[in-house]
């Protein structure tokens, strides 16, 4: 039992925290948003650090890090709203490495020369809609009835204008079946869930931190607004939920890494809880920033919009609850048949 980061995890956290703090300030986030939600400079900087391949095997140029390490990075990445699709890329590249037979491509992914993603939503007539990082990824993995398809094509560059300023795009995927391993696909999507949960924790904690800083400076009725219990109670609730989400996100990553029997369940749980907690935190922080929180000038709105957007890339959260319910209680039709 080790419910705090290990020395190694703290070292990873430290290195990436410094990188993102320096290279992904909100000016970069805003600039990237105007350019379609992606910063090539930031991606290249991340590649120079070994970020894109950190959790790939050393044999293909990766860093041999675990999913737990990746979750530590996802947390920092979320805190800075880094406009690079690190989570999608890492998960897709790991899936391709697991499938095997694409070592040359995986080497390209490990060094960041190629950018990979996963079409999280089912394909309809060969079209994957709302592909995360679909605007910029030249490698897209998709899931069809027969298994996993691999598409390598020029990304469109232009993103669909969207709430979160994300590089979303629809993509037509080549019918290039590379695996019939549905379990591997599910595992990869669960990795996406756990890592996105960790990113949500970074986001939610940071938006509370920003709000608490603001509450020290903002004077109303002659005193800093942070002295008001109404704000304190709201931030304390939000913070409690974020800490609960933090423990869940990293427990899910650990469970997936070590192949625990409840790993998939925990990944689904972690994402739903972390997303809701982060959305609550951004709501509180925006509310306690008053009108300024709503203005474009302040960063809270950047966090608010991304907190809303990230989980919706997977679809309506109700469907995620329904998916977990089916796993827990059996599908509804099954109940009727019984």
């Amino acid at each position, binding site marked *: *039992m*080790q*419910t*705090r*980061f*290990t020395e190694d*995890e703290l070292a990873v956290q430290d290195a990436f925290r410094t990188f993102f703090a320096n290279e992904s300030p909100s000016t970069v986030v805003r600039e990237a948003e105007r350019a379609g939600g992606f910063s090539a400079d930031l991606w290249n900087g991340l590649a120079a650090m070994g970020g894109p391949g950190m959790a790939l095997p050393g044999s293909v140029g990766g860093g041999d890090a675990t999913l*737990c390490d990746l979750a530590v990075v996802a947390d920092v990445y979320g805190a800075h709203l880094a406009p690079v699709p690190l989570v999608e890329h890492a998960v897709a590249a790991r899936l391709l490495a697991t499938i095997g037979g694409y070592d040359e491509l995986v080497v390209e992914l490990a060094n960041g020369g190629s950018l990979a993603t996963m079409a999280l939503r089912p394909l309809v007539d060969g079209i994957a809609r709302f592909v995360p990082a679909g605007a910029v990824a030249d490698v897209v993995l998709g899931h069809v009835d027969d298994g996993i398809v691999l598409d390598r094509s020029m990304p469109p560059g232009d993103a669909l204008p969207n709430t979160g300023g994300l590089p979303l795009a629809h993509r037509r995927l080549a019918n290039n079946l590379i695996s019939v391993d549905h379990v591997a696909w599910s595992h990869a999507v669960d990795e996406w869930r756990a890592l996105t949960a960790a990113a949500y924790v970074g986001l939610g904690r940071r938006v*509370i931190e920003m709000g*608490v800083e603001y*509450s020290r400076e903002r004077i109303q009725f002659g005193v*800093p607004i*942070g*002295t*008001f*219990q109404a*704000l*304190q*109670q709201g*931030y*304390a*609730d939000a*913070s*409690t*939920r974020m*800490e*609960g*989400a933090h*423990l*869940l996100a*990293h*427990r899910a*990553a*650990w*469970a997936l890494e*070590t192949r625990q029997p409840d790993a998939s369940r*925990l990944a689904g*749980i972690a994402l*739903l*809880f972390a997303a809701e907690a982060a959305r609550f935190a951004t709501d509180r922080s925006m509310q306690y920033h008053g009108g300024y929180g709503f203005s474009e000038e302040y960063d809270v709105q950047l966090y608010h919009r991304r907190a809303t957007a990230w989980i919706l890339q997977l679809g309506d959260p*109700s469907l995620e*609850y*329904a998916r*977990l*319910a089916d796993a*827990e*209680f059996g599908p*509804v039709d099954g*109940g*009727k048949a019984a």
Partner: protein
Amino acid sequence: MDFSFPPEAEAFRQEVRDFLATNLTEDMIEATHDGTMHIPGLHRAMADRGWLAGPVPAALGGGGRSPLESVILNEEMQLARAPIDAMGVTVIVAAILLEHGNDHLTQHVVPRLLDGSSLACFGYSEPEFGSDVASAKTKAEQDGDGWLINGAKMWTTMAHIADYVLLLTRTDPDVPKHKGLTFFLVPLDTPGIEIQPVPTMAIERSNATFYDDVRLDDAWRVGDVHGGWSVMKTALKYERGIAGGQFPSPPVIDAALDWAQTHTRPDGTKPIEDPTVREKLVRALIDVEVCRGFAYHCADLANEGVMFGVEGSMTKLFASESYKRHCRDFHDMMGAEGLLTHESADAHLGGRIEENLRHSPVTTIYGGTSEINRNVVAEGHLGMPRAR
């Protein structure tokens, strides 16, 4: 991170499960409907296994079992619907006495608390002071070699079956409130003590206790004269480290799932087929995993010898607030049938959800209200200024 338990802790979990399967009966749980949330037979059987002494540090003469085993014991007992209140308080009082008590208390009282033959209760709150407990005004005055105690305490739950009350008193009214407090362990059969029941809206009863010229030998003093606040800090430390309360929801969720799968609505469908019911059940299961994360985190910190404060507050805040929500959601789901109490033969599973619904409001109040815990988080975790 690593969320696995060591093999000996996993073995202990199995031992506890086997023990509860054998020693905890439905009749025992049914008997708590008289309002006393304590099962003497179960308590003694646990004491016989050394489990009461388990969480008390070995350096102090306790069992020195790992905090990881304590959290497992608490978790399994709550999952099995075994009341943990009297046991928790008694063990905490023993730990406090071992840390602050004199030879009389550690040699004559503690062994009886840990072998299951005596029970203790808390005497902190008063009619006029609850959350602001340091303002307690129950008076203890020097009286020759001993003390004379006068005052009243509220919420001395279990006092009617307990042997001792851990009493917070004011020994100096002329200094700042935290500096004039002294603790005593008071035998409840001492002349001058009156115990009156305080019925509640739930099944459980509490008590008000009154102290009228209660004479006490100095041997019953716990810690230094005017040193009560440091004893209080120890009490809170153990309350967060030993006491349970992180898993009130699972028995309610079990009952809700049973209802959802077996009940037929007027339109012929089962609640479990309703997407809104399914989402509520999943949300409750998610909340339980959050509680599990918090509980294991606190146990891990205690195991590493880290003093924690805000983590305990977050755990208690989240567990009790979510429990209250679950009770409401699932009571609603049952409609009018959910209103039936355990006295009705038609009540689902002995009226378990109804009973929890009525019990749940107190959980966000006792042992530190949600508001006080949020203050602790705001000040201790977020560094916000003191606001009261």
